[in-house]
């Protein structure tokens, strides 16, 4: 216990000392790491924001209107509505009468004018469906077409093109976000490795003596790993703060310009924790790699 405590104290003490002694190099390392963490955080948050905008679109897209033919009886409609309600893939079904449809549509002045000119209401009644998964929409479109009470000419408002494109865009953006984060992660690993290598080089005599008098590899390694972790965490705290503040500002300004970007506090906190953990991990692993070469005595 005493030995472990003393080892930890030694490692912590020399990590701190090291950091102070090579303050210039250490700060340069922290700064570069900070920049990269900033980029990673920014990239992830941006992807997330775009994702949530698209997600909103997708939610809208996961609705389908099934147009009911004018000749259908209320009993038939109620029956069909019940059938849809019982379907596991369906979240909700709402019946929209011809009058409601007209009222809804008349928010557009052109349509309002057209309706007035016509004198009668050509808009069909509909069953408005919300489904759990976007991909199920096609099945409901098919089902509607096979149902007798559904309008022959326009069965639904389903548009497969828009939906599949939206799907692709979401996947591509998520993929790009992950790839960018991974590349930045690799770059920061190399940077930390070289920073630590400089620090190790400055202390090569010390390491040589440690090896000479019989210190174990891990005993030599720990201070550097702690130093790397320390740098990573400091970098993550600063960049995380900037990312968080930037996200806040971005959401505010986006809302002012009518672009509805939801502020996802939960995600931001998770991201901060991730950045901290990632910073520490990259710092530690980079140091491990950086010190490896000098241990081969």
């Amino acid at each position, binding site marked *: 216990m*005493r*030995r*472990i*405590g*003393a*080892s930890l*104290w*030694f490692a912590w003490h020399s990590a701190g000392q090291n950091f102070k*002694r090579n303050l210039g190099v250490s700060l340069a390392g922290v700064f570069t790491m900070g920049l990269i963490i900033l980029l990673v955080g920014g990239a992830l948050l941006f992807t997330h924001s775009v994702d949530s905008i698209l997600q909103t679109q997708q939610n809208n897209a996961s609705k389908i209107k099934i147009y009911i033919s004018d000749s259908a009886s209320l009993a038939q409609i109620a029956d069909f509505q019940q059938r849809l309600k019982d379907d596991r893939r369906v979240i909700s079904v709402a019946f929209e009468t011809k009058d409601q449809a007209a009222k809804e549509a008349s928010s557009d002045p052109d349509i309002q004018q057209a309706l007035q000119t016509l004198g009668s209401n050509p808009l069909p009644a509909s069953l408005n469906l919300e489904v759990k998964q976007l991909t199920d929409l096609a099945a409901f479109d098919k089902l509607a077409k096979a149902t007798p009470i559904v309008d022959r000419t326009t069965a639904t408002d389903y548009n497969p093109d828009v939906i599949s494109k939206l799907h692709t865009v979401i996947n591509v953006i998520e993929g790009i976000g992950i790839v960018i984060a991974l590349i930045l992660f690799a770059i920061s690993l190399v940077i930390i490795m070289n920073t630590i290598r400089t620090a190790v080089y400055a202390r090569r*005599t*010390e390491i*040589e*003596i*440690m*090896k*000479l*008098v*019989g*210190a*174990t*590899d891990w*005993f*030599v390694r720990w201070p550097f790993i702690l130093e790397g972790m320390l740098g990573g965490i400091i970098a993550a705290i600063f960049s995380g703060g900037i990312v968080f503040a930037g996200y806040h500002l971005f959401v505010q300004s986006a809302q002012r310009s009518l672009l509805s970007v939801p502020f996802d506090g939960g995600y931001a906190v998770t991201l901060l924790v991730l950045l901290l953990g990632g910073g520490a991990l990259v710092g530690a692993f980079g140091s491990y790699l950086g010190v490896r070469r000098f241990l081969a*005595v």
Partner: protein
Amino acid sequence: MSVAFAERFAMPAVVHGPRPVISFHGVSKVYGNHVVALREVDLAIHQGDFCFLVGASGAGKSTLVRLLIREETPSTGRIFVEGDEITRMARRKLPKLRRRFGIVFQDYKLLANRTVAQNVAFALQVTRPGQRHLREKVEEVLWIVGLEDKLDKFPDELSGGEQQRVAIARALVHRPHIFVADEPTGNLDPDTSWGIVQLLLQINHRGTTVLMATHNREIVDLVRRRVIAVEQGRVVRDEAQGSYLRPGDATL
């Protein structure tokens, strides 16, 4: 000082076992660039021996030392230290092996940003963290080398001889069985060198095996101890009470 040394720095009593402390069996070392540093070296050093390892620069003295402390491995042959074959020793066992040695070099290898006491304490801190009575142990060993009044000086405030004494104190503080000195007087004037050798003789007097690589002719000829002469990678002479040069000869 010799008596005080004997009293204060208690070492295990000298036991001349049948088995040598250090032995080389047909050891050769060829470096990557086809430079042959050692050829078929056979050696046996017993507990309590004091050996000079002599030879011109590049003769193979340093390679021999590096092989002994397993900084390098031989190309062929086997080396034993206290009965353990070190040539095939696993890497994780090396720290324990090195703790059996006290090692000093020509260039002292002191840490410039630590005081004399801190330099010596460092050796204990990194091998035996949480060591009790650290300060007492450090002061004791610095007293042995005659630097008890320089505890808080920094290396660059000391003379070369004093720096080498600090290095010796650091190598002694964990009470090694074998003391290896690679050209310890290489940077020192004759008087100071003689002081260092006296110190090594005292260390040997208490039972510690000492191997000193040197090309200091006066010292070797004055001390008259065992001399192992190396020339072009071969052991060309091994005498119990030898001199630097072959008697009546101009070469080793």
